[in-house]
């Protein structure tokens, strides 16, 4: 829903971009730049989750599988094989896509909760495997000492921002194309889609591959910001956090989840002042949003603005 992209949408996107571009200048500290870089990574992850799951309604409870796949690819290539980090920008998404095919091909043909459950368990299994095969993966400590892609953290922030914009533009254009129409139809009724001559399984698997590619890209960017990868990148809690960000942003809109991811990351930092009560406050805010704004915060808000500015 939301109709075709209008001038006001480009203006809104431009305004958001300006805010993100000047954001680091409000406080030049590398700490704030780091928080914002992580927020951008979450933006990529939330948008890529939304493209598959938000549009088709097939919830993915193990998005961290693709994130970890991308991040560990970056770790292996850079630390073990000494390859330039830039290779990982291609290899990370590719490895994640392979995971996407491996997960999607058997489970997305079936109806029912198999896909969601398989994703959840696959991510958990990978987390365990990184610990079991610790001689290769570094176990609990992970792989350390990745090379930075760029010398300055500010430059790296802009590189990450570039990839977030790239992700957002590609996924939003796809979602607004006939491809997106078909994905929303799959969400509506799979049998009707088949009766309309649409190869539902193909579109679901292809969308999961696209979703995985961008999640893997975010994983590579995150790894080369942290300069370390660890088993937590496969954690279920990471997947759940991304889903929460998508809900807060507004499912199925692509831009909403990016806003939700950035908002919640910044809020988490802002609540540091509450010290030990931080999680309480964070959870209360979340409950407030989900209770009073079940459609989310950012996408519905933008739809209202569009109506007013008509």
């Amino acid at each position, binding site marked *: *829903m939301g109709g075709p992209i209008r001038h006001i949408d480009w203006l809104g996107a431009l305004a958001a971009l300006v805010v993100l571009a000047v954001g680091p200048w409000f406080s030049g500290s590398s700490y704030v730049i780091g928080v914002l870089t992580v927020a951008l990574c979450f933006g990529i992850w939330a948008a890529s989750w939304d493209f598959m799951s938000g549009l088709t309604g097939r919830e993915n409870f193990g998005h961290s599988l693709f994130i970890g796949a991308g991040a560990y690819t970056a770790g292996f290539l850079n630390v073990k094989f000494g390859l330039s980090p830039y290779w990982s920008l291609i290899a990370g998404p590719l490895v994640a896509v392979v995971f996407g095919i491996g997960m999607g091909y058997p489970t997305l043909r079936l109806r029912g909760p198999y896909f969601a459950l398989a994703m959840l368990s696959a991510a958990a299994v990978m987390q365990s495997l990184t610990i079991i095969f610790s001689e290769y993966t570094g176990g609990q400590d992970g792989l350390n000492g990745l090379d930075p892609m760029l010398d300055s953290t500010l430059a790296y922030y802009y590189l990450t921002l570039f990839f977030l914009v790239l992700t957002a533009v590609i996924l939003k254009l796809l979602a607004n194309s006939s491809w997106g129409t078909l994905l929303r*139809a799959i969400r*509506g009724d799979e049998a009707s889609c088949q009766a309309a001559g649409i190869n539902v399984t193909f579109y679901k698997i292809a969308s999961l591959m696209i979703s995985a590619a961008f999640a893997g890209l975010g994983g590579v960017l995150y790894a080369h910001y942290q300069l370390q990868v660890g088993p937590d990148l496969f954690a279920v809690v990471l997947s759940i956090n991304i889903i929460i960000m998508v809900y807060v942003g507004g499912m199925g809109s692509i831009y909403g989840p990016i806003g939700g991811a950035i908002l919640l990351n910044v809020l988490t930092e802002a609540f540091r002042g509450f010290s030990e009560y931080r999680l309480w406050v964070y959870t209360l805010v979340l409950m407030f949003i989900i209770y009073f704004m079940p459609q989310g915060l950012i996408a519905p808000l933008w739809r209202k603005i569009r109506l007013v500015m008509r």
Partner: protein
Amino acid sequence: MAKDPAGDAVNAILAVEGLNKRFGGLHAVKNVSFAVGPGTITGVLGPNGAGKTTVFNLLTGFISADSGTIEFDGQKLDRLVPHQIVNCGLARTFQLARPFLGMSVLENVEVACLAPRVRHEGKPRLRAQTLLDQVGLGGKSEFLVDVLPYGDLRRLEIARALATRPKLLLLDEPFAGLGSNEIKPLADLIRSLHRAERLTILIIEHKLREFMQLVAEVIAMDFGEVVAVGSPSMIVRHPRVVEAYIGNVELDPSTLPGPDGRNGAA
């Protein structure tokens, strides 16, 4: 496997031979064979549980047969999945309308215009609008499908099926759940589609009156078997059909088709 009588097999657009389907202990479709000639409207009649919808699901690949062959337009459909069968030119509607909720009426039809079979026949959006005009929903194309009344959803189902440019259209109880004032316009629509496009239509129905006026030939089923095939006027007098189905229904003779195939009543 037996062959059809020579004449039928050559002319038929759809030839079903020895179709069987069991669900556990229930033999839902028992050795069903029939043929549908091109450009005809054929009815499938039978009481609840006779296996009519199961036959439709077998024809459209939504369930697979235990044995038997389905030949459509010179092609075997047995091993194909639903979207492939639609792209061969065999489209269906569902007994309970199944719209894509959360999408506009136009988008609902646009989805079917994106099927590989018709994807390159002009802009999907424009085609969808033309189809909506054709079924009388042209003015509601921007409505959210969630707000459409049931009668309109039936028309939407038909528009969606037509969007794939079928050679054979299967309608599963198109009149079910409609008010009396909605039935006649829908029957007229089906009739006009048949005339305008020379579309072959296979239709399951319970509503005897409208149904018998619409179809030229009836396949009567009971307990998963084909019990009789013939013209509507013949079928309603057939002893097996009367026993199975008509026996406990008040039938108004004035609604029966006259000898020339036109209906007798005004």
